[in-house]
């Protein structure tokens, strides 16, 4: 199955995992402690995040630590950037218009 970054971050639990790992590397057990979901569910999220390279793992002794790969997340921004510029500009113009009409009538 094809995986991409957007699919990965579409899920709120996976976004939460990313915010956790953004603070520091963690073992799967430590991550699971932060969630009500089953350990199995968390493993599945970890697997998806790894497949999209949003996180990477490193062995340290007997434990596996997961790291947040911020470089990969930047791709999301890059992808959306043009679209974002277009809409942000458009909406700023609408803000200005609404503001203008407000002062005109009051």
């Amino acid at each position, binding site marked *: 199955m094809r995986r991409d970054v957007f*699919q990965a971050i579409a899920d709120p639990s996976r976004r939460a995992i990313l915010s956790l790992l953004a603070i520091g590397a963690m073992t799967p057990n430590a991550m699971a402690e932060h969630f009500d979901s089953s350990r199995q569910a968390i493993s599945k999220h970890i697997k998806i995040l790894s497949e999209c390279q949003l996180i990477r793992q490193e062995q340290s002794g007997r434990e596996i630590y997961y790291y947040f790969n911020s470089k990969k997340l930047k791709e999301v921004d890059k992808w959306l950037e*043009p679209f974002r510029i277009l809409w942000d500009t458009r909406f700023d113009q609408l803000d200005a218009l609404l503001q203008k009409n407000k002062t005109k009538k009051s």
Partner: protein
Amino acid sequence: MIATKETIYTKDPSNKKLKVVREFDAPLQKVWNAWTKSDLLDQWWAPKPWKAVTQSMDFRDGGTWLYYMQGPDGERHYCRADYKSVVPNKSFNYYDAFCDEKGNIKNDFPRTLWNCQFSSTGSGTKVEVELNFDSEADLQKLVDMGFKEGFAMAHSNLDEILANN
């Protein structure tokens, strides 16, 4: 006071939907009018330095908005919106399209279904726009196009900054 609100962009896992959510600091009726009345749309719909110019507007179920976007070098892109259903002050949806000046649709570009929803919040109005694509490739095409426009805009903003300093 003009507060710039945050716009939230979400891409659906299917890669066929893109959602844009934004709040505006004005009552619902005014925001609704800005999205549905051509004289107001002309004032904000095209991102600078482009301008939107309405040719005809028939805002109702089955009606059409025909307009063009004029670029800084005078080039024109004709577009149309075919409204499917309109629920006053609540929602409307339509298919967009590029067309010629008579409104004949150019089929080489994918059409997107737009769902626009409006709701009052405590302090203003929330607008949710959902863009639906037939395929992932169609979405990519739109983004590529946005890139070109975004690039042009970035330059115009730079011009403005340079002119003001």
